[in-house]
């Protein structure tokens, strides 16, 4: 029994060696692909990496095996350090979102993310600002007026530390509305769920959250969403939530997710991925996955993505300098 399985393993190993040896030097892609998720299984980055993996596999877009590797830690710092060690390796991808820029500006990340090779922006999510159903704040303008009057008395909570997305999203809005974001009183929780419990328990006035985590509560009517940070209104339970623009605040806040190659990816590989990702986002499997995950498609090719990142960095730099988070 044991002997048999041992021979099997040995055979498989031999096959693998033979396979890699024979494919050396062939046209790109010549080796298995590794997609780095800079977080634990279960989070948004992991879901993104695994979705890419699945669609490439099902649609047979990548001719070699694909695997996702989780490198959790430091809000993406460990994953970033890992992909930097793979400099020049054309068979390494990594997924990231705004913390890539935020953590670079506040110097949590020691590497410069600009060395990564942007391949495409893929999807986006937005923030909503929610209050408890029985809150005295009926509209976003009620809320803003109260904050304006006494910023310290209207506490808000989010699922991440100060200076990260939940906090910054409202700071950006407050600043546009003429409130000094430094005066705001933010309670940081380690996860959106905890922040929501605190809201429902009546301990804070409102919560800044990604849309996905609170959809069910908006639908059930336990919380009320006062505003969404997208440019146009969302669908489903979000269709009655006004955008900031409708409320006269000319700004948006995007929680985008995109995919990058390792630093120093070859021109050949970049061209191959530009083509492949374009094909990927057009497939039915991709569209179905997005629908299931309630992600908004936001495809931009490598050039568009690079330009977008530049704008994002400028906007974050302004905001974070005001708040003293940029170092």
């Amino acid at each position, binding site marked *: 029994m044991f002997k048999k399985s041992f021979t099997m393993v040995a055979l498989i190993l031999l096959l693998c060696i033979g396979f890699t040896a024979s494919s050396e030097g062939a046209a790109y892609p010549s080796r298995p692909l590794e997609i780095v998720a800079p977080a634990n299984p279960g989070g948004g980055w992991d879901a993104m990496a695994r979705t890419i993996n699945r669609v490439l596999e099902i649609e047979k877009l990548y001719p070699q095996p694909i695997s996702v590797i989780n490198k959790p*830690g430091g809000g993406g710092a460990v994953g970033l350090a890992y992909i930097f060690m793979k400099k020049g390796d054309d068979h390494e991808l990594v997924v990231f979102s705004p913390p890539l820029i935020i953590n670079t500006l506040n110097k949590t990340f020691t590497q410069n993310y600009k060395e990564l090779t942007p391949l495409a922006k893929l999807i986006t999510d937005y923030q909503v600002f929610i209050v408890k159903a029985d809150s005295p704040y009926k509209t976003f303008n009620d809320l803003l007026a109260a904050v304006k009057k006494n910023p*310290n008395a209207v506490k808000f909570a989010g699922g991440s530390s100060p200076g990260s997305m939940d906090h910054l999203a409202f700071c950006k809005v407050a600043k546009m509305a003429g409130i000094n974001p430094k005066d705001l009183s933010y309670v*940081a929780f380690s996860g959106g769920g905890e922040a929501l419990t605190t809201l429902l*328990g009546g301990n804070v006035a409102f919560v800044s959250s990604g849309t996905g985590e609170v959809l069910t509560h908006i*639908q*059930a009517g336990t919380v009320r969403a006062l505003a969404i940070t997208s440019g146009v209104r969302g669908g489903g339970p979000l269709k009655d939530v006004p955008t900031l623009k409708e409320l006269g605040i000319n700004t948006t806040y995007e929680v985008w997710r995109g995919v990058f190659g390792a630093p120093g990816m070859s021109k050949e590989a970049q061209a191959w991925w530009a083509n492949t990702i374009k094909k990927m986002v057009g497939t039915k499997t991709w569209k179905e996955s997005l629908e*299931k*995950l309630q992600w908004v498609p936001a495809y931009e090719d490598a050039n568009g993505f690079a330009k977008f990142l530049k704008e994002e960095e400028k906007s974050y730099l302004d905001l974070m300098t005001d708040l003293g988070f940029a170092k």
Partner: protein
Amino acid sequence: MDFLGHFWSNVALGFGVAGTPFNLLLCFVGVFLGTLIGVLPGIGPMTGVALLIPLTFSLQPASAIILMAGIYYGAMYGGSTTSILVNTPGESASVVTCLDGYQMAKKGRAGPALAAAAIGSFVAGTFATLMLMLFGPWVAGIALKFGPPEFFSLMLAGLTVVTSLAGRSLVKALFSTLFGLAIATMGIDNQSGVPRFTFGNPELMDGLEFLTVAIGLFALCEVFVNLANMKDAVQERLSIKGGLWLTKEDWKRFIPSCIRGTLSGFFVGGIAGAGAAVASFVSYGLEKKVSKYRDELGHGAIEGVTGPESANNAAAGGSLIHLLCLGIPGSGTTAIMLGALLMIGLQPGPLLFTQQPEFVWGLIASMYIGNVMLLVLNLPLVGMWVKLLDVPLYLLMLFIIMFSFLGVYTMNNSVQDLFIMVLFGVIGYLMKRVDIPAAPIILGIVLGKLMEEKMRQSLVISDGSLMIFITRPISLFLLFLAFVAITNPYWKQIGRGVRRLFGGAPAA
């Protein structure tokens, strides 16, 4: 009457859903995988559930949750196995089980220890399911009353457990606790976003993984201790003495500790939402305070296995209440389950019970079935597991080393974690040589981070006033409990002193 009729028709509906051959199979696969995941250190229930998510895409919502929930509570059963046999906790909620479980194994009583863990888990799991069924939404309402101040007071009360983890010297135990609390401050501070004690090392930014430290302090330390006694240890075996099953005396001690563990675990983990690891610690402390056999704890008392193992299962079941009734995940694993349910197009939360009865009641029924399956699955396994102990001690030590390295590496795919584990193995060994207990370090790490976070959140809410901890009734009550727990050993002395002061006859 109408309510009752409605209730029974719901129960029937649930068993109808859970009883289909396919769902029974999924339930079995879930609890079986869960047991395995619990046994293997490193792969926790969180990773297990996350990796199965793609599979659940093609399933009916009820089938998907039956599978995932099976993994979740199955892991709570399996986690105790390696704690008892090789002093290596399989997941974080089973760390406390090492203390008495491994001592029992050393005395040749691994069989009763494993059986007690399985039966205790069964009782607690069934109890939590019953509570979910009868009082789910009501329990969820109480859970919302636990804001940051209540949480802080609960953690503080939990910290009084340290007196029960002390060996001979309370000072040494306090030293050890402080060391644990200090370790808990490592990593990015959630309240300010500033990294502390990370030395620019990205892998330290989330602090030290609690299971890595625990495996170093318990499992590797055990290896080092045996290495030091190499000459006598080589051919020694932890062979089984006596039966594999609980004796009459065991049963008498099992029942009260199981009830206490279940209730305290359900309160701490299920209602307050403090997680299964904290629940198991609190249960251990409770045993030390109220059990008739408290002096035997730490030396292989069955209460030290039954209590925590019941508690962690009651907590796991309880956190499903948070998920289903509030749509708020109470633990890392339930957070992933929430994500998966959303993907399937189902929205857990207040509307779930009315909109998706076949889903909710199917899950509840499957949890009864799953718990029975786990009991049937785990009891015969006891006989198999204890055979593992029938090897010479040096071989067993090799097992421990293999399990530890494999487990810690798979957690984060990090080599640095291995070094940290070995470092804590050495620290644990040195501490053992000077008789400082290691368990308080773990307690400090488990409670420290949460305590600090909750205290600072409370203070932001109260604009810096400490009054927030005593003006809120639940918080005040928990602080009072903590006070009683700390002062209670001195009451007799104080009473005697007072009597002497007033000239009364000194007590004998």
